[in-house]
């Protein structure tokens, strides 16, 4: 947590400013919305966090969101499949996509940027071709299935605030990820692989398997996220669904302290980074700033956050240097 003071500061400043100058920021309805959006985007960011931890990158995530998000209503409505078949199939499919990335990167030694950039084009292309570029939606059906994402769980003692159902998969995934990264041998080894792959190999760590695993996890979570997104929004268009989501996820992870050079991942940081981005987007609306400014504000805050982080890191390193020289 210590290394997240900067980010927490930015998060609180945005919250306080919005609460003071915006309208109804602290209403139950708005908080529910924010929790929901944070949960959805955090699931994506957690996945890419693993890949960033190994020193890689996954640009295909938004397209996997699209492919899965399109495939779910397409199979359910257009083809009349049972949800019991569709959900496992799309999740297995996304894991397979990750496996493909992992094998291309570890076996063929292709650059992650390149492999996943091709994935970005490929999966969106498949989604558009598969559906003939038609928008896909649930057309008012499958309300029960969709409640996985749109459901709200009543909390004892709270009247207005009901917990968005997506919080549950997020809490489970974040807990598992945090335990994995900090408490398990494989988690330690994953981060070691990211900080120096060659040293990891010389330490007898099965680096190829770990890297492949990270890509599988990333695509699987992107698939899960895509499914929850489509449950939440109800309909999607293959040409724009999930556009730029990989960048939101990567931005959140980096804001949350994950180094793009690999070797450091923080689950708390990722969730906090996502929350910051979502509160920021919310506050632009609540402050009445006009959505034209949105990208500029997000870009500026990201840059400020990352720059502040780097300065803190240097200051810290300089202190160590002073302590350690001799």
């Amino acid at each position, binding site marked *: 947590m210590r290394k997240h003071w900067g980010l927490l500061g930015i998060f609180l400043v945005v919250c306080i400013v919005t609460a003071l100058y915006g309208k109804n920021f602290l209403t139950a309805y708005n908080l529910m919305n924010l929790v929901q959006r944070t949960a959805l985007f955090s699931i994506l960011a957690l996945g890419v966090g693993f890949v960033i931890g190994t020193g890689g990158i996954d640009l295909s995530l938004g397209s996997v969101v699209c492919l899965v998000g399109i495939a779910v209503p397409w199979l359910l409505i257009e083809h009349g499949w049972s949800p019991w078949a569709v959900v496992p199939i799309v999740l297995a499919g996304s894991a397979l996509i990750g496996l493909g990335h992992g094998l291309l990167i570890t076996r063929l030694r292709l650059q992650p940027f390149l492999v996943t950039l091709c994935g970005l084009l490929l999966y969106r292309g498949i989604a558009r071709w598969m559906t003939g570029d038609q928008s896909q939606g649930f057309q008012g059906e499958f309300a029960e299935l969709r409640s996985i994402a749109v459901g709200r769980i009543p909390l004892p003692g709270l009247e207005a605030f009901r917990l968005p159902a997506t919080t549950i998969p997020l809490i489970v995934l974040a807990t598992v990820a945090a335990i994995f990264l900090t408490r398990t041998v494989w988690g*330690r*080894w994953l981060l*070691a692989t990211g900080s*120096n792959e060659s*040293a990891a190999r010389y330490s*007898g760590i099965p680096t190829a398997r770990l890297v492949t695993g990270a890509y599988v996890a990333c695509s699987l979570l992107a698939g899960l996220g895509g499914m929850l997104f489509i449950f939440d929004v109800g309909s999607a268009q293959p040409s724009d669904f999930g556009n730029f989501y990989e960048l939101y996820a990567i931005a959140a992870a980096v804001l949350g302290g994950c180094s793009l050079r690999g070797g*450091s991942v923080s689950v708390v940081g990722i969730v906090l980074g996502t929350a910051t981005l979502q509160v920021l987007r919310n506050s632009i609306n609540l402050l009445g700033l006009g959505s034209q400014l949105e990208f500029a504000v997000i870009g500026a805050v990201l840059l400020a956050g990352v720059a502040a982080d780097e300065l803190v890191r240097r200051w810290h390193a300089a202190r160590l*240097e002073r302590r350690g020289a001799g």
Partner: protein
Amino acid sequence: MVRTILRTRGIGRRFAGVTALDGIEADVRAGEVLAIVGENGAGKSTLLKILSGVLAPSSGSIEEVDEHGHAHELRLRSVAEATQVGIALVHQELNLAEHLDLAGAILLGREHHRFGWLDLRSMHAEAARWLARVGLDLDPSTLCGSLPIAQRQLVEIAKALSANARILILDEPTSSLSARETDRLLAMLDELRRSGVAIVYVSHHLDEVLAIADRAIVLRDGRMAGTLERASMDRATIERLMVGRDLPPTTARPSLGAAPDRLVVDGVVTSHRRRRPASLVVKRGEIVGLAGLVGAGRTELLEAIAGLGHASGTIMLDGRALSGTMAQRVARGLAIVPEDRARHGLFTLDPVRTNVSMAWLPRGAHVGMVDHAGERDLVDGMITRLRLRPSDPARRVQTLSGGNQQKTVLGRWLAVEPSVLLLDEPTRGVDVGARHDIHEAIRAAATTGCAVLFASSDLEEVLLLADRILVMHDGAIAGELARESATEVAIMGLATGGALEAAR
């Protein structure tokens, strides 16, 4: 001819209240080699950083002395400023940009150009001149990344020379060089000295210091332990001044008798360009040294045994074939301490603790969960056992000295009590005290039954540590020498392709 051109006046440096360096008085004279020796943490690197403009002194001053003997103060605020007044530092860690070719690396920042276009022909010609000066016969368009480490070091020196340095500071320049290359370097430095260059030479190889230095400054705990003129320099005096104590005698090696074979390498052909088979045996509890010139195939052989890189032939451990990936071999009890610790050994941004426990983790794990208490105990124990300094498990490895970094990598493997310990240049860039500690730890591991196979270009180390010496030449084992009958001359004879008989 011999004239002081740079002088330090009571230089000192404090970090957060701790004195790292105090009262250093040094004269750097044109046409002279000034050696700076001292243990880890004695202040050598701080002094070098001050001389080369990386750090500013917190007390005292540096003076430049002109030909009339007038001194004026020099305030170096950056490496660039130091370079401008003719001070060049050849760093211990290799700093060449891997993707540049030699010409580009040597002339980095001073590229030749005509009308904004790089003049590659003239750059290559100049680079070739400097390469020849350090005895490297290489095409200037070779990529730095493709060079073995020994040659990169020479390229670094060529780079410093090409910058017209008046004062050349060499930090452990021979740590990766073979004996022959070291001789060539010393001859080259002698030539530079004749041409009037002032050389500041930092090395823990006292042989070299004794061979080339005109004067030596011995540092201990940040202070001057003594300045020795050439006439009064001898190994015992320097060591005594450095350590401030007498090193304990090395542990006597027990006789192995009829110990069973532990590691058997039979007809292994590695990625070495000559593709010649190599065979060897290491017994339980035995320490075998692999000597040979740089490029003889020692690293390739060690890596083949570890399962890194392609190789054919059979390798047996305790009578069972050893094969598969490195991870699988590690599970069988194999360990390797690589040559280039920064690249292949360390997680430099991580603390000592995670570096040391990395290979041990699965042993202490319950259902895949790390045993944190066990890890703490293990690392604390290892720090004490290897005399790791500072004894702080949370310290980032990046900030440690070379010797302590090497201890960290060694500790990672000692933690798993390996059956076979492979080491490639176990004490390169490591000073006397740490070298002693590392050797003792290796001996202790052997005593518990571990089969140790190490490669070293440092003949002194080979003779000191090995029970038995194998000499490699051109990818194959050229001959074997028993500890008692081995001499530096005999090893060099085999290493350079001479017959076993002739060497004897």
